[in-house]
């Protein structure tokens, strides 16, 4: 076997396992400035039309989900995209050879200057709306353009990806991603794992692959090959085949109960990000849902009670009598929600997020509690609140739930009083877990890890401080398990650690007997449970 003379090897961290062979594609950086080199006027006109159409679609969707002032502003912006006096001069400039984005910026800036010159606070506020719509169209021009031009089968190379960029790409056409920055614990990495998109992060030194150059990634082992030779490709194929064998084994045990080598029964539940995750998924593979995120419901502002009730009911129906834990809104941190979260906090991860935010927005929190209590009439539902720090917060949440249940009682509306549990993700809560009046504990190991190591989840280059299994995190998990035993309430773990078979043994050693994992990991985690022997039981 001969190795290709041009082959270059780069190492990184596996963020989402898998293998891919394809051609490199580098994502351009965004920005509000002119980024295009003008192509032929017809091409620029087409890019402009695509941008306008995409921006209008976004505004229509946003507007449908908003009310009051927010909807008025969106309506105004939408009307501007269909305003001939505004748009025609842009088309004329494009026809004269100006790039689509440049022509758009010039026209809008002219308009914005006019508003600012009026010296009127109402007009100044509208100038901000104009800037906003200007940038939305610019992003749409750049985005639609770029996404449309990425060739099928490409492997993306970028410094980092935002969750919205990740979600905006059609991964069924793309092989995987290579990030020179990023981190294995970031939200993008979690998204990549749950979608089965092979992804490498922290690849250093910066890979020298040019756009279109052949590359291959082993995102299970953490290696990128530029211009891979025949021997490398054969090796990757062998690894992929071995991986496929394990996947087949995992599939075979997916519906079986999880029992350790020495006979201890372990419950394996699934995490749900949105109801769509359940499509095509059989509830027979799990012992229930250990974490249902509800942020998707709030993507365009707070949903009403009926909307929430319908979604919770659908999830309970899927579970068919298995327990379902639903987490109340966990906004803030890196998950801002327009109109609900607080903008401009200097460090949002240490700011008003999770239950802290819900307690400051009781009008929104009550609606969610009410919908949850009503849904609980139909099946075993548990409510979990995120980011609890001190026992008083748990008491405040419990009072609000009590009031909600009383109100439903008075109104004669069908409901049940669901157990109220806490997510353990702040080290202060893990250390003093026994002090909290909670009906169950669910450990959020992602945030617990970042808070106890003081290393942000999305930061690059500090992974030597957070190697897993991290003994400090295991210590805090063990303490929480012990607190749960003493108080006689259940303890589970729903963080990303639970989905990683290489960590299963260490988790079971802490005494945990309930894991909530990504649906795609159920089989592999059950295989890992079957290999484990019980650790020392405290």
């Amino acid at each position: 076997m001969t190795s290709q003379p041009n082959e270059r090897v780069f190492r990184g961290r596996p963020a989402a396992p898998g293998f891919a062979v394809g051609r490199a594609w580098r994502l351009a950086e965004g920005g509000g400035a002119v980024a295009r080199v003008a192509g032929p006027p017809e091409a620029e006109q087409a890019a402009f039309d695509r941008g306008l159409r995409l921006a209008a679609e976004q505004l229509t969707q946003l507007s449908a989900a908003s009310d009051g002032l927010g909807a008025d502003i969106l309506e105004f912006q939408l009307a501007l995209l269909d305003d001939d006096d505004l748009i025609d001069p842009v088309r004329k400039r494009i026809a004269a050879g100006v790039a689509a984005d440049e022509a758009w910026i010039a026209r809008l800036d002219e308009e914005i200057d006019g508003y600012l010159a009026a010296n009127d606070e109402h007009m100044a506020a509208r100038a901000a709306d104009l800037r906003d719509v200007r940038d939305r169209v610019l992003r749409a021009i750049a985005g639609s353009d770029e996404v449309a031009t990425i060739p099928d089968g490409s492997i993306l190379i970028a410094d980092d990806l935002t969750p919205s960029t990740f979600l905006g790409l059609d991964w069924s056409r793309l092989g995987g991603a290579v990030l020179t920055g990023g981190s294995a614990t970031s939200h993008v990495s979690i998204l990549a794992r749950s979608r089965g998109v092979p992804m490498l992060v922290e690849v250093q030194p910066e890979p020298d692959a040019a756009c279109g150059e052949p590359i291959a990634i082993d995102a299970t082992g953490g290696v990128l090959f530029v211009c891979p030779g025949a021997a490398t490709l054969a090796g990757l194929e062998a690894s992929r085949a071995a991986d496929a064998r394990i996947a087949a084994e995992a599939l075979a045990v997916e519906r079986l109960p999880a029992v350790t080598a020495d006979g201890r029964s372990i419950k394996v539940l699934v995490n749900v990000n949105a109801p769509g995750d359940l499509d095509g998924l059989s509830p027979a593979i799990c012992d229930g849902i250990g974490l249902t995120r509800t942020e998707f419901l709030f993507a365009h502002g707070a949903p009403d009670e009926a909307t929430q009730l319908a979604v919770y009911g659908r999830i309970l129906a899927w579970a068919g009598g298995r327990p379902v834990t639903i987490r109340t809104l966990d906004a803030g941190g890196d998950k801002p929600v327009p109109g609900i979260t607080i903008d401009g906090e200097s460090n949002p991860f240490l700011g008003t997020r999770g239950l802290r935010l819900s307690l400051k927005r009781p009008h929104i929190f009550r609606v969610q509690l009410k919908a949850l209590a009503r849904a609980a009439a139909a099946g075993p539902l548990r409510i979990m609140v995120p980011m609890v720090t001190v026992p008083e917060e748990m008491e405040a949440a419990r009072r609000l739930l009590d009031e909600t249940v009383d109100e439903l009682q008075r109104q004669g509306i069908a409901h049940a009083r669901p157990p109220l549990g806490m997510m353990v993700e702040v080290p202060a809560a893990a250390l003093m877990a026994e002090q909290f009046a909670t009906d169950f504990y669910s450990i959020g190991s992602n945030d617990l890890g970042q808070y106890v190591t003081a290393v942000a989840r999305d930061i690059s280059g500090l992974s030597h401080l957070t190697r897993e299994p991290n003994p400090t995190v295991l210590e805090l998990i063990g303490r929480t398990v012990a607190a749960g035993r003493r108080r006689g309430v259940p303890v589970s773990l729903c963080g990303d650690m639970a989905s990683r078979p290489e960590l299963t043994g260490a988790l079971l050693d802490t005494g945990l007997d309930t894991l909530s994992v990504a649906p795609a990991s159920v089989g592999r985690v059950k295989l890992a449970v079957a290999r484990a022997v019980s650790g020392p039981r405290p």
Partner: protein
Amino acid sequence: MSEVWETCRAVVQDKTGLHARPAVKLTKLAKRFAARVEVRQEGSEAWINAKSPSSVMRLKAPYLAVLEIRAAGDDARAAAEALRDLVNRDFNDVAAE
């Protein structure tokens, strides 16, 4: 041009003047008609396109400003009157809409 203009007048009832929300309503209504529809504030020279929200915004018509409305084309009369009524009832939707 030998266009025949249907004209009428209306008074801005909104305390904050003809701002974004009214401007959107005015232009949406104007766009329902085939006629050319134009507006201006009483006393100013230039007529502006009543189907363009950005142009209507530039009127900066304040509370109690008198708006002149003119329309030309097949449904000119109906257009001018519809716009007049919309401004006079302070941009409130009527049940019939």
